[in-house]
């Protein structure tokens, strides 16, 4: 174990997870189709994708719950196939489903987890209390898990996943089906883990705002393939430009060609009295547009600047909505336009 780790450290490689062309097939279905990526020590790495994209299957392979059909993966310096027990010893897993024993109390559940990691009771008792404190379940610790709410159970799962002080924590859809408060709490814990304990986190989600606010890097996955990897801002930038909507009191004359002359502007569309402008660096483009409008003797009635969201990047990359409902393409498109107009 230590030999393997020192070898990695000598290599100077900061990657705690490295995956090469990992695949998993279930019969005809290719759930994961040759994904390759690396996770650096200390980062929060997110797998973002629609349901059935292969997120959980990838996590299951990395946590040695499933055997890859082909490809190679090392986690914490250990091969997931030949050194599965070493992998399990070093990582923590917070699975998508509830796994706690309903007939036992929260405290007993954590102690059982500790036993399964082979931790001595003298250590695990104190650690269990500290973890119950962290996930704010101290008051419910002596109650049977059966009486817990969904949010409490999710937090208990998180505490169980942390019992062995993992270097790397896998969180499979950690906030699925939680109310806003509990989701905020889970996010808070995740940030605590990253900032205070320098833990590396791998999480899957299909909530865009979650990936955006938590992850250092995101891999967008669909149909078992990674479509794009990058930081949230890189992914947003890939959509291309901010959207500026300028309302002008006079509908004539049409000054679209003049606006298009401005350097930062990429595209102009006139829509009644409104100009919908796609531009780089919207903050700098907007005053220039306003100056131009005024110089033509027209009056600006409103101005709105919209930064691209991860939603747009995501939809542009996965395009699932449109693909699944090909016949309804126009309706979907107009709905998107309506929605973005409503936002601006």
């Amino acid at each position, binding site marked *: 174990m230590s030999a393997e780790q020192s070898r990695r450290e000598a290599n100077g490689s900061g990657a705690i997870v490295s995956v090469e062309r990992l695949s998993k097939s279930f019969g005809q279905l290719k759930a994961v189709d040759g994904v390759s990526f690396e996770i650096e020590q200390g980062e929060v790495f997110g797998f973002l994708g629609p349901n059935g994209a292969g997120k959980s299957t990838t996590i299951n392979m990395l946590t040695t*719950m499933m055997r890859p059909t082909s490809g190679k993966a090392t986690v914490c310096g250990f091969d997931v196939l030949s050194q599965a027990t070493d992998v399990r010893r070093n990582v923590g897993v917070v699975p998508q489903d509830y*796994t*706690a024993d309903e*007939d036992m109390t929260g405290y007993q559940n954590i102690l059982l987890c500790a036993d399964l990691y*082979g931790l001595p009771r003298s250590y695990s008792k104190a650690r269990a209390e*500290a973890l119950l*404190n962290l996930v*704010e379940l101290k008051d419910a610790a002596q109650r049977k898990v059966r009486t817990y709410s969904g949010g409490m159970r999710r937090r208990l799962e998180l505490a169980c996943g942390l019992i062995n002080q993992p270097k790397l924590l896998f969180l499979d859809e950690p906030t699925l089906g939680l109310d806003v408060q509990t989701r905020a709490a889970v996010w808070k814990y995740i940030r605590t883990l990253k900032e205070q304990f320098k833990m590396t986190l791998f999480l899957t989600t299909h909530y865009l705002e979650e990936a955006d606010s938590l992850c250092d890097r995101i891999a967008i996955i669909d149909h078992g393939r990674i479509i794009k990897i990058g930081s949230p801002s890189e992914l947003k930038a890939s959509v291309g430009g901010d959207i500026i909507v300028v309302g002008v009191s006079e509908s004539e004359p049409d000054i679209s060609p003049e606006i298009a002359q401005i350097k930062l502007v990429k595209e102009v569309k006139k829509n009644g009295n409104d100009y919908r402008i796609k531009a780089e660096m919207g903050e700098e483009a907007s005053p220039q547009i306003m100056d131009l409008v005024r110089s033509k003797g027209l009056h600006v009635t409103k101005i709105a600047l919209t930064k691209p969201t991860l939603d747009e990047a995501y939809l542009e990359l996965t395009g699932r909505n449109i693909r699944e409902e090909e016949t309804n393409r126009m309706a979907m498109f107009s709905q998107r336009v309506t929605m973005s107009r409503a936002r601006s």
Partner: protein
Amino acid sequence: MTTATDEIESATVAETHLKSSSVAVPLTLEPPPKANTGPLHGLWALTQRDLRKWYSNPIQLFISLIQPVIWMGVFGKALNFGTFIAQSGASPSVTNAIMLNTFGTTSYFSYLACGQLSFVILFTSAFSGMSVVFDRRFGFMNKALSTPVGRGTIVMAKVFQSVGRSVIQASIVLFIAVLLGMDTGYFSVLGIAEAFGVVFLMATGLSALYVMLALRSSDWQTQMALINLLNLPLIFASNALLPVKLMPTWLQYVVQVNPVSYANDAIRQLVIGAVGSSSLAVDAGVVLAFAVVLSTMGIVLSWRLLSK
């Protein structure tokens, strides 16, 4: 009713508490102490988990004891072979000779009581597979699989929790049998202890069999069907209720490959001093081999079947 409401209320209180508080985190960055992740770690923790569920629910134990008691009390008392023979006019010495020759003992009730021990073992062991299925269904299996616990350990914990139940239920059944009039003339501490050694081995083998069949399953209905499919032939094609001698020849062959027969034979020799159909050494050897082979198979299969 009141407690349920209280629990719901306190759950809500805990949730509200969460929203407002920001608790200081007393967790440390100190590395955890050296963990014992040897091949046997977690075995007791997992076994204890299941046993705790069992003894915290005494109704389950009570219900599981009803069936063997009915068998002994109704079937055992009604089928009084000694009286049948005596009614035909045979003298007591002739009756005893016939009984001894057929059953290996003069009391059919004692004969059946020993057979009931294997009843208890069979029906208890059958549910070890069910316990695997429910652990899968309720997600606990995934938790166990994500920890460094050995796959074989997970299987053996399921086997041992079932063995624990079997041994305890078998002792209660034996006690009830004594109350109902079982012949205690041959009882000795060593004999009973050895008989429970046989109970232990038989329960190990049978539980391993059922756990093995459930390794890949998350469907409890299939398990129920399997239990019915296997348990009835294992009981009736054995010497649990009647001696082999009374059976047709083809059935005798089946009984002779049924490990349950050897367990019964050994238990009868040890507890009531019956004349066995095989020597005690052969009985013990078969039961031991059964336990070892099936446990090994269970462990080996778990390496392959527990992860997808």
